[in-house]
């Protein structure tokens, strides 16, 4: 059998037009001219396979199968029929009022004109709506924006969320464990140590633990089932593997998690599942805490304030031998000016420690020529990766704090366009070490204010401000006033032990048992 006939018999050959007998029927019933007209239209309609005989027959079963094409051309289109699955007559007329107004066969119009004009034969497929990511960085940024300029609004949002919230309380003297991953960023360890110190100063029996306790592995010590657990930096604690094992997120159930990451970062995202499982969340950023409450997490703001006699931040008489200090003279490494000496006796003019993001690189490049006037010590970390003690760390707490104690100015630049108040750099490295903090605009705060406790300027003006501070007697007087007021404020009014005690103490209700919760 010749291929064409075989295909025709199988019914897979595209229809080429009216059949011979159908043509004769039309000619007999309506005249030859009419039959020729219909046959021409039929060829047009079949040219690109717009007409589908089988589809037409199954869609409109009252039409005889063999007469489908002529039926469509003669009256089907007037009845709103479509010629096949590739063309929707109703849609085409709706989308093209000019065709509807002309009262012509829409399928023929499409073949003659519409196709070349780019008109669509079918409605655009409705794409299934992508599942909305509630925690998408853009949504978080949008939620943060109003709080950046209005600290009171952030406090109000947090206070509002506290109503009806069951917040964990800790009985005075109760045992508390503060967890941080042993292979995490040194700065996280620093925060965990500070928290432990503050909890002890607040009258709890706090100890520092790591993931070994949670995983019940080597040297993890006793379990802590009856102990209130704090976990610092959940994005590390639940994600960094130890011998192939990670702490499961459900271990966060019942624990108080301390988020230290900016909300739009991949790091925050990494810790999110654990945060969702937590009994309560503390965020070291005011604005982030307000946003997390709005997003349904039981969150409060934890101002990482002063802890008396905190040994990690004691004066560092001698600095360790670490890569970040390689360029420092021996005389600077081996001598730490007294904390209360005048700024001009500190040997380093400007200190910056942080990841060299593209944004910071651009700003530093622009400032570089003017900054050459001053003794700068910039520890620019070349990747957005954690500084791990004993491994990749270019410096450690001793080095960072020791550098700050030798610096007149601690500079703060944002990693991205988000104006976070970088508490760790501004307060722990800066104000606590009695350096003057100079920053580009930061989110509004309740504890510290620009001009009173630190100085701020738009980033293209920072170097002018620095020149004035370091280069004039008037500037240096302002620097002394501001940094001393900041230190007074921090040590007297922003006490982390008091903040924690107020936040965690049982209120009017009878003292609950250890690690029980208010209802």
């Amino acid at each position, binding site marked *: 059998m010749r291929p064409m006939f075989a295909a025709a018999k199988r019914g897979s050959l595209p229809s080429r037009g009216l059949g011979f007998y159908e043509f004769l029927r039309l000619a007999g019933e309506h005249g030859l001219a009419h039959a020729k007209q219909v046959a021409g239209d039929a060829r047009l309609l079949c040219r690109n396979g717009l007409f589908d005989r089988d589809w037409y027959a199954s869609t409109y079963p009252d039409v005889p199968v063999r007469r489908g094409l002529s039926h469509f051309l003669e009256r089907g289109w007037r009845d709103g029929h479509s010629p096949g699955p590739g063309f929707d007559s109703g849609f085409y007329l709706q989308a093209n009022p000019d065709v509807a107004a002309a009262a012509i066969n829409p399928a023929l119009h499409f073949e003659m004109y519409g196709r070349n004009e780019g008109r669509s034969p079918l409605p655009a497929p409705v794409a299934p709506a992508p599942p909305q990511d509630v925690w998408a960085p853009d949504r978080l940024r949008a939620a943060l924006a109003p709080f950046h300029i209005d600290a009171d609004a952030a406090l109000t949002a947090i206070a509002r969320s506290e109503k009806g919230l069951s917040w964990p309380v800790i009985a005075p003297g109760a045992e508390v464990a503060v967890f941080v991953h042993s292979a995490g960023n040194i700065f996280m360890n620093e925060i965990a140590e500070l928290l432990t110190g503050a909890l002890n100063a607040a009258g709890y029996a706090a100890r520092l633990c790591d993931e070994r306790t949670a995983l019940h592995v080597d040297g993890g010590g006793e379990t802590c089932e009856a102990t209130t657990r704090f976990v610092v930096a959940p994005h590390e604690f639940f994600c960094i593997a130890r011998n192939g094992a990670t702490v499961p997120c459900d271990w966060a159930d019942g624990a108080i998690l301390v988020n230290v990451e900016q909300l739009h970062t991949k790091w925050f995202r990494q810790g999110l599942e654990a945060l969702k499982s937590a009994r309560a969340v503390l965020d070291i950023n005011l604005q982030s805490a307000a946003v997390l409450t709005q997003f349904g997490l039981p969150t409060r703001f934890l101002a990482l304030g002063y802890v008396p006699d905190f040994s990690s931040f004691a004066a560092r008489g001698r600095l360790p031998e670490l890569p970040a200090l390689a360029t420092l003279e021996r005389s600077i490494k081996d001598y730490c000016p007294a904390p209360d000496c005048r700024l001009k006796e500190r040997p380093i003019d400007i200190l910056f420690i942080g990841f060299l993001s593209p944004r910071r690189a*651009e700003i530093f490049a622009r400032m570089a*020529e003017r900054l050459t006037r001053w003794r700068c010590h910039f520890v620019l970390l070349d990747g957005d990766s954690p500084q791990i003690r004993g491994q990749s760390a270019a410096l450690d707490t001793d080095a960072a704090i020791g550098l700050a104690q030798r610096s007149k100015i601690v500079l703060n630049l944002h990693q991205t*366009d988000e104006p976070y108040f970088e508490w760790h750099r501004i307060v722990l490295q800066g104000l606590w070490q009695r350096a003057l903090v100079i920053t580009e605009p930061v989110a509004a705060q309740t504890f510290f204010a620009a*001009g009173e406790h630190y100085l*701020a300027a738009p980033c293209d003006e920072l170097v002018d401000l620095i020149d004035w501070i370091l280069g004039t007697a008037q500037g240096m007087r302002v*620097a002394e006033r501001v940094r001393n007021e900041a230190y007074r404020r921090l040590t007297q009014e922003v006490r982390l032990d008091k903040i924690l005690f107020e936040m965690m103490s049982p209120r009017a209700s009878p003292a609950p048992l250890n690690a029980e919760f208010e209802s």
Partner: protein
Amino acid sequence: MLLVGYSAHANNPSGRTLHRVRLAEPPGRAQSANRAFRGAGIDLFYFNRVGLSRMVEPLSADEAVRRVQDFFSRDSERRSWPWRHWVALPMVERAVNRRIGGAPDRTLPQTLAEALPELGLRLPAARTASLGCGRGRFDRDLFRHRVVEALVGYDLSPDSVEAADRWARSAGIESFAYRQADLNTIELEPQAFDLVVVQMALHHTQELERLYETIARALKPGGLLVADEYVGPTRFFWTERQMQAVNGLLTVLPPEKRMTPDGDFKPLIERQPPSYFEQTDPSEAIRSREVVARLEECFEIRWRRPYGGAILHPLLYNIAWTFKEGDPVSETLLASAIAIEDVLTEAGDLDSDFAVIIASPR
């Protein structure tokens, strides 16, 4: 309809076919059209998303004030990043410093700190008024160089006044105060100021004559006016020579150097219709060409330093950020543009569109 009318451009510096295209709303479509034309190697002129229907409607005075205030309130807090303006670039800043103060490292406040005492003013000036102070950047600079001490700043935009006040305090300056005022109607206490400074505000003023008289009355005997101003074509009605130079340079820039921070491709410059200013900042360059001539009617100019800008200002607007400090290509291109501006200005081919002037009342 997105594209409204085409015309071939006669002064085509690149030899390519250029089309004049007016882009109406919406901006998203305008951007994609812009990109499409760029892909086809066609440079675009366009009236920045001006609704054509607005072109003939005159603005009421109140509406104009409201739009100016709105324009300056939209200026983000950290507008300095990414850099959009010519003088934000260190290389340009050095060229400007050289033109004004004779040395690339000597900034305007430093130059003024030397020039003003030579003209008889004791520094720091005990009481200064800063007119059209914006966010107070110039005021703080002057304070840091001991040019001013106590200062009162005035600006039409409440947002700018609030920001100037906040930034002064944030930077540790306690002797500044800021008030809202329109320079067209401002009243100043007679003989109250040793110094009046105006930076980039006279060219936003319609009532120049009245303002100059007010300043003259407000100055104490021996007091001085310092103006750092755009004095170029009114309403940015660029000269033919200027457009030729700027568009020629724009055309030879690599495409990545012509991207704005918003992701648009910077079009060639052209003269804007009145509606452009009505839609953006109705006070922009409103009588800028007359700033000096009107000043000379009631002030004696004691010191004048024109500092160019006829090419660099329109050329770099919105694309300054693409010229990275330390990048050899950026530095070569910038150095060329600066040199061309120097040469053409020196030859009298171009006027200087910016100048610093110190004047005293006649």
